[in-house]
């Protein structure tokens, strides 16, 4: 069964926390990965791969550059679950 936006956000926050140490409560929808959370592109790719595994979705490399905010990622993953 597809996960809700809230569930995807919670799962994504755990992944971000594991990769960067950022508190899960700080991973909010409106946050920018680069500007607010200070996540660099290499960490972002690690987060993407872990998200692909966790949510059983495919996030193409060329799509990663479009995932600027947490909401972008949550929306993409939610939609990709089909």
């Amino acid at each position: 069964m597809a996960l809700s936006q809230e569930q995807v956000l919670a799962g994504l926050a755990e992944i971000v926390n594991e990769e960067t140490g950022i508190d899960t409560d700080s991973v909010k929808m409106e946050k920018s990965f680069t500007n607010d959370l200070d996540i660099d592109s290499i960490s972002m790719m690690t987060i993407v791969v872990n998200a692909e595994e966790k949510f059983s979705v495919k996030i193409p490399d060329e799509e990663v550059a479009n995932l600027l905010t947490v909401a972008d990622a949550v929306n993409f993953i939610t939609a990709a679950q089909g």
Partner: protein
Amino acid sequence: MNQPTLKQFETVKYSRIYSLGASRGELVVTNDDIAGPIDSSDEWIRQRTGIITRRRASKTQSLIDMAVEASNEAIKGAGITPQEIGAVIFSTITHPYQTPSAATLLADLIGANPAPAFDISAACAGYCYGIAQADALVRSGVAKFVLVVGGEKLSDFIDPTDRSISFLLGDGAGAAIVGPSDTPGISPTVWGSDGSHWSSVSMTSSLLEFRDGESTWPTIRQDGLTVFKWAVWEMVKVAKEALEVAGVKAEDLSALVTHQANIRIIDELVKQLALPESVAVARDIVNTGNTSAASVPLAMHQLLKDGTVKSGGLALEIGFGAGLAFAAQVVVLP
């Protein structure tokens, strides 16, 4: 008329690496030295790559100079004469002649003439490709001793304003002598390529385009994130398969020696492989930079030289890069 029975080479059961040799570019290039043209900083480069300095050759220090120095050390370490070398394999992508090969000149300069000698082009996987071939040549009886060299003068093919890869690159050569052994010393190699990602790490243009004035001097570029993803998650599978076909477990290893591409790739590989702390991880990139085909032998040489690992232990070596080409094998440390 009776046809005579053909003779064929008599096979040898096992092979091993006898010795290593190393040569690094004579210039120590700091992050501050190169940060200007890419609008970067020492801190940014350290955090993204782990590199503090990279070694680069001077204008007068050639690829062949470094290969000769590394080869002579390996030959001496193996306790053989150059004339005993039955084949010279030189892995490089920076020999500036389409022909003849760098290997034939190297063979002559080290006194191995008339040994068969040839170059291979497998970029950062090149040394491990060379070890696979040397292992096959030795065990098939074609050559008793094989000199494998991974060497690069990448600084001839960089663009100081390129933020994708140039600032990572260094120059050097690593050499190994492979020969017959009473006990297994080189596991089956897990190797391959994926040309569907041919352009992920490549030159900016061909020599023909440069000749025709359609491009500037070709330099190396990469799609860093695509390569990072492949280098970690695909190479984890290759590394696990290499351990499996070698019949060893991660905890049996003394060392992991990966291609020194980027400390972030190395650290993520270690994490994904769940390596126990007892396994030494080569991080020669910190002081040497990314030297493509030279990086695995240089990194292994450094671990042995500084006493981090001892001769006789097992090391998983894995090379990966442009092509995309990859190769991994478990070896007994010389």
